[in-house]
């Protein structure tokens, strides 16, 4: 299945070759999880991140990494941010 990823701020360094702006399509095996996606991109578990899966924020404590993905899901990877 194909997952669309968008990487922000310092995570852009993990963009695969050939990515346009901050977006890339990543091919994964069926039943892959967000953790598998992070592994494929080379993003360590230790790096704090805020995941948005199909427009839903998972929070800044690394929640969402076990989320099972399906074809055409969109995963955004931010570092923790704040403001307002």
């Amino acid at each position, binding site marked *: 299945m194909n997952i669309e990823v968008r990487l922000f701020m310092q995570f852009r360094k993990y963009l695969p070759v050939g990515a346009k702006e901050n977006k890339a399509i990543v091919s994964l095996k069926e039943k892959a999880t967000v953790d598998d996606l992070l592994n494929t991109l080379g993003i360590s578990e230790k790096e704090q991140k805020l995941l948005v899966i199909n427009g839903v924020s998972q929070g*800044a404590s690394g929640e969402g990494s076990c989320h099972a993905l399906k074809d055409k899901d969109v995963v955004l990877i931010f570092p923790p941010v704040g*403001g*307002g």
Partner: protein
Amino acid sequence: MGGWLGKILRVDLNSGDFDVEDLGPDFARKYIGAQGTASKILMDEIDPTIDALSPENKLIFSTGPCTGTGTVCGSRAVWVAKSPLTGGIAFSNTGAYFPSEVKFAGYDMIIVEGKAEEPAYLWIHNNEVELRSARELWGKTVSETEQFIRAEIKNDLVAQDTRIACIGPAGENLVRMSAIMNDLNRAAGRCGIGAVMGSKNLKAIAVRGTGGIPIAKPQEFQAAVAKALAEVKASPVASQAFPMLGSSSLINLYNAVGVLPHKNFRAMNVEGAAKISGEAIAEGFLVRNRGCYACPLACGGPCRVTNAPFAGKGDRPEYETNWIAASCGIYDPAALLKFNALCNELGLDTIDTGSTIACAMELAEKGYLPEKDVGLALKFGDGEALVNLTKQIAYRQGFGDLMAEGGYTMAEKYGHPELFIHVKKMAWTGYDVRNVKGMAVNMATSVRGACHNRGYTPAAEILGMPVKLDPLTIEGKADLVKTLQDEIAGIMDAGGICLFSITGQSPPTMFEQLETVTGLEITFQDAAKAGERIWNLQRLFNLRAGITKEQDAIPKRFFEEPATDGPNKGRALDPQEFETMLKEYYALRGWSSATGYPTKEKLLELGLEEYVSLLPN
């Protein structure tokens, strides 16, 4: 006790006389400081029904006990008065260096009364206080005012270290969304506080202070500061996102989750948002980052635009200014930076100014606002129009004269007040609440009009701080709003600590600094209780000023027009759910659902017995 200097400077502009009064320890204990102490004075000294632009209004500048002490992010103070925008209580916070300098000069508060016969500015150099002529300053912009005042100070070293708060042309022209600026580009923007200063013929306050601030428990305080700094360092938001991207690090995230308002709250997720994001500004325009007094976050900094038509210098905009560009459908970072720089230079609140323009764009698009009235074919996406109308508002030229009365008055004149998105006539801030339910209650109940600051539920509902809550549920949200409102009012706002620092240091750590600075023998719960006391006092002021419980309401748009795009497409806020949360909030607050007033029991519990006689029968 420490933190406080125990002195209030009271200036009578009618006579030019001034007095120094004592700030009693019991008063400080009960109201902590900043907007707590100032709200109490405003409530007791003015009739809430007066015209906000009359000499009877009082303008109070009030610091907190942590301001200027080295408390982490303890740079803040507040301006308090009756608001010419909402008719209720105005409080508008600011940071940078002016607030701390007022304390170094020896004062916790400055109360300005009456009206000067001719334009004047106040010069304070420790004990030396003088009202000087501002005849030659009237009409000058913020940076010109700074330059002029510095040039008038004979001693160069004093001139260099003087800190200045002033109004621009907008405040002079009594524009109801005008700001008081300090240190050139920090704005006490909201509630039209600049117009109150303008109505008093007061152009500026310039301060130089060389005194210290006593600390009650110096060793314990030092340990508390070290703990706070360690917490900030360990937080990726406070130690990385803020210095790199400022508060607008949120633009891309909020756009992605469908919370960023576009086109006057009619779109939530637009690809172009990336162009006006914190990343775009930092990478394309930021020269370097810069912080306020005692701030390791350093979220501000100068920006430069080199290309026409918006070439020029300015400061890094806050999230609350970036989103205005989206609300006007403008995805041009140069136009955004020009708008921000102009608002700072002319002394305008970016939120109400930009939201009034976004509303005019919608009125024009729908055919309610004739082209001949505005003088141009107004449409979303026009950066030049945003810049030109901003100037017209500040100088009350052409259509700007009506806009300067506030977005609500403008929209009402054209028969569609519902198109101005506001609470209590103050423009809504950068959050689409169709799908962030806690925030809907916070906005409705915000005492100064639409304001995200105190009950910032998106921290939990979107960012997951301190824990992640589902933004689509209503359970527990009223309680979350009340808890945040009270803790932030009592510890951060009243203490003089910047709200952004909550992304690093925890409220108990802030409290530890407040407690060791002051030597107040109170608990965290006591400080939160002081916050509740302040909240109720401000609420009473509003009720007495004629702002009723019916104004604890949010725009119909959020109920009647479902989200048009993004992850929440098709969803709108359910009016029943909103009513349920509001009812729960009133019950938690101890407010009557019939009158909106606090109950007698609540006032007694909070030690506000002197106001029981104001309650309706």
